[in-house]
């Protein structure tokens, strides 16, 4: 991820009120995760498994925080049960920032299946999402997605495509 994109995401998260993030890094997310780790305005918790981060974000919400989870789409697949039982079932909002490996522009054949399954899983779980890539799309998508997450009391996802990740 280009530093400019990472900075735009962090600034938009802060503007949207996000003050707590759980993260699981990946090569494409490195700049974003390191920037979040340095930012004193956002409490960052690096996790060992993405579903764990969903639980941590839900607990933080119950304590009054505005949480987001930063992960790749493989981690979103790992998180499905946690999202269903801990967020969707009681009605707890967590903003999901999901890097989309295996989408258009993907060169690594290993990512194709997870890439193909990402949007159908979001749709199957009735999680609303915005796909973004260009710098100017990022801020409005994050602000509007966080507004919906808080008002609907449900997770809402930002899916970052290759243009944002590379």
């Amino acid at each position, binding site marked *: 991820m280009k530093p400019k994109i990472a900075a735009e995401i962090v600034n938009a998260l802060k503007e949207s009120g996000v003050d707590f993030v759980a993260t699981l890094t990946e090569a494409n997310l490195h700049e974003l995760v390191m920037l979040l780790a340095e930012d004193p305005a956002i409490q960052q918790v690096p996790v060992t498994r993405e579903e764990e981060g969903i639980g941590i974000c839900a607990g933080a*919400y119950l304590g009054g925080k505005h949480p987001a989870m930063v992960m790749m789409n493989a981690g979103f697949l790992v998180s499905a049960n946690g999202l269903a039982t801990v967020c969707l079932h009681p009605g707890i909002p967590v903003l999901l920032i999901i890097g989309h490996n295996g989408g258009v522009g993907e060169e690594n054949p290993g990512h194709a299946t997870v890439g193909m399954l990402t949007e159908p899983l979001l749709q199957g779980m009735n999680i609303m999402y915005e796909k973004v890539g260009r710098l100017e799309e990022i801020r409005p998508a994050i602000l509007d997605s966080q507004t919906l997450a808080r008002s609907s009391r449900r997770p809402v996802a930002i899916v970052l495509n290759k243009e944002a990740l590379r």
Partner: protein
Amino acid sequence: MKRFDCLKAIAPHFKEELVVTNIGGVRHEWYSLRPHPGNYHLQNLGLASSVGLGLALALPHRKVIVFDGDGSLLLNLGSLATIANQHPKNLIHIVFDNECYESSRGAPTATAGMTDLAAMAKGAGFSHVASVSDAQQFETAFLEALKRNNLSFILAKVDPGIAKVPPATFDSQENKYMFVRYIEKTENVRILVSPPSRGSTS
């Protein structure tokens, strides 16, 4: 020892502490002993320790107690490493280890074999770890943890079995609203807000 006897021993010591319970019998047992809006009863196996961590980090001045189980923690072992590294002083992680999947008709878990969850907590980086097997020891370990004001892990080896208590009557949605309204009131924060009416002039 029975889990219910452990819970009975510590229930009188609770004031405004926040509690996260694992799915299963512990939810109903605890609610029968301490019905309180500061109880959050998860309908999920595995994430009790993580929800407790998030809550403890969000409210560092409130004590958070997690009632976890062996089957649950085995599903989320990485949370031990995350919790130990975050090291919230206000979190007490209690695992009732009955060495079986009690709510799933009792097949053995890994702790019926070679696995020691207290040793795993120590290895993950918890500095205060107790392992107890009678209710008196459990109460002592809990009171020490409460007084310590530092991250604590208590492994309570218990017999399988759920006490005959009336089931908690509310669902996850009602529990969330009760808990969140309680936090809003006691912390003077707004969590569930609605936008002003479009007709509003202010």
